[in-house]
């Protein structure tokens, strides 16, 4: 049977993620040391798991309200005021979603009309471009530059603005580069957003993982931006809760109401057990965040130094749990490098171009691993580089 007749052409023409490819190869090999995953290596802190278990024991196994439990929405708003100084109304400004990803998808579909241009800074996580296209938008890529430590500048935005530009994606702290935007960086971006009357989708899923004395900043906290921004965040990276699949969107009530409609028809409601666990996380999880951040920070300093000493230069990333070393000195493309490294030394990294063509010449390295693991991987990469030189 020719299934092509039945398959939507937009979906058919969407390429599968370039990250997946390396996972699949690595998955079939023995003794692979991976530096490629994009999720915490910590287990969800016990008191949070216990809250989930407790809810199950009490038989709390029903749907939650479409928007998410009121108690959770209240805790999310309290948290946002406490950590970022931005106030949201739990009744109208919050939607609890199945991971940050659903919130990104819903936000795009609510904001974008056919032909609207969506500005997407790259390198960045692989979902924005296909989701914008799926929502009938036209993705317009902004290539951020290594010399700016992959931060987004107002000039780069202005260069790409046309009459059709509607939405700007802000993927910071950034996967895969580890770049983060300071308050000043955001203020400069805000001026352009205001000038051209843009809407913003700020993906702040890694916001709590900020290092080097930098404080997490939400784009919504920049004056004038709260009313034109959808903030997407979640529990996965902050509390090591990836498998619980829980995220949320915060924004103006007019937008959240439309997103809630979409969510109610497509998803119904986010997982109930996960929501009970998340309430506990927000109430009593600040120390866990601190502990995990300290651990990541040690690894971050260790790995940045190690790559720079190997001659694969990388800037000091101040967010998330990735470093983005430059491999141009080896004369190889990102894919060649990643493939040869995997086959000759069984070390898995992700080629930078999987996150957009501006990632060419770089590799994404995750430090969401123990120091012992990182140390072994680094020593194998050292051997690899030495052999390549011969």
């Amino acid at each position, binding site marked *: 049977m020719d299934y092509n007749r039945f398959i939507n052409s937009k979906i058919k023409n969407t390429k599968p*993620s370039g990250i997946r490819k390396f996972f699949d190869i690595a998955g079939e090999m023995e003794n692979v040391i991976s530096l490629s*995953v*994009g999720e915490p290596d910590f287990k969800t802190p016990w008191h949070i798991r216990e809250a989930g278990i407790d809810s199950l024991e009490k038989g709390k196994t029903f749907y939650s309200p479409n928007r998410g439990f009121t108690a959770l929405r209240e805790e999310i708003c309290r948290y946002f005021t406490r950590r970022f100084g931005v106030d949201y109304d739990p009744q109208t400004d919050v939607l609890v979603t199945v991971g940050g990803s659903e919130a990104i998808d819903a936000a795009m579909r609510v904001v974008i009309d056919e032909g609207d241009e969506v500005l997407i800074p790259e390198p960045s*996580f692989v979902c924005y471009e296909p989701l914008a296209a799926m929502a009938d938008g036209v993705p317009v890529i902004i290539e951020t530059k290594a010399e700016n430590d992959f931060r987004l500048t107002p000039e780069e935005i202005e260069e790409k603005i046309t009459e059709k530009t509607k939405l700007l994606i802000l993927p910071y702290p950034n*996967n895969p580069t580890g770049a983060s935007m300071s308050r000043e960086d955001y203020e400069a971006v805000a001026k352009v957003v205001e000038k051209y009357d843009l809407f913003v989708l700020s993906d702040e899923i890694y916001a709590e993982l900020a290092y080097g004395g930098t404080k997490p900043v939400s784009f919504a906290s920049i004056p004038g931006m709260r009313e034109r921004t959808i903030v997407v965040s979640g529990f996965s990276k902050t509390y090591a809760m990836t498998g619980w699949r829980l995220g949320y969107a915060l924004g103006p009530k007019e937008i959240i109401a439309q997103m809630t409609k979409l969510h109610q028809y497509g998803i119904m409601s986010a997982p109930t057990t996960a929501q009970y666990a998340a309430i506990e996380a927000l109430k009593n999880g600040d120390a866990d965040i601190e502990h995990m951040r300290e651990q990541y920070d*040690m690894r971050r300093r*260790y790995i940045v130094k*190690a790559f720079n000493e190997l001659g694969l230069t990388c800037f000091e990333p101040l967010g998330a749990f990735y470093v983005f070393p430059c491999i141009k000195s080896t004369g190889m493309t990102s894919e060649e490098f990643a493939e040869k490294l995997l086959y000759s030394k069984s070390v898995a990294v992700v080629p930078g171009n999987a996150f957009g063509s501006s990632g060419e010449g770089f590799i994404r390295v995750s430090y969401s691993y123990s*120091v012992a693991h990182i140390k072994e991987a680094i020593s194998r990469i050292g051997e690899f580089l030495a052999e390549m030189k011969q």
Partner: protein
Amino acid sequence: MKKRLLQLLQENCRYTNEELAAMLGTTQQEIADTIREFEQAGIIRGYNALINWEKVEGSEARALIELRVSPKKDKGFDEVAERIMAFDEVEGVYLMAGDYDLAVFVKGETIQDIAMFVARRLSPLDSVLSADTHFILTKYKSNMTDMQNLASDKDERECMV
């Protein structure tokens, strides 16, 4: 920084000063000085390998002896503890709160050796009131380490993010 340095050393005392300095965001000199301070202050008492003796051929038997002892007027438990510590068979001595006073970890070539050591050397000591011997079968976790590699350390993360 100091507490985190100790935690790192406890995790792996073979980290080089250079690695420690990188992880803690300080200089090698600072690390070297701080470690020396710890050694001089008796905070760091040594650097041991964590050995799973059960895997070593011809390895020894081990036991935990619960001792009830009568403390001495001036020296409390210190005097008897010091005597017990002096035996080569004794690996560890802890003062406990609860049903007994001293937890004594003992090794010997065989279970008989340990039993004889308790009967001939420990029990006859003046202040020892009673000795209860428990033989150790397996060390699952010791010094924060999974000694038998029991816990599945397989990395189950395989999502594309």
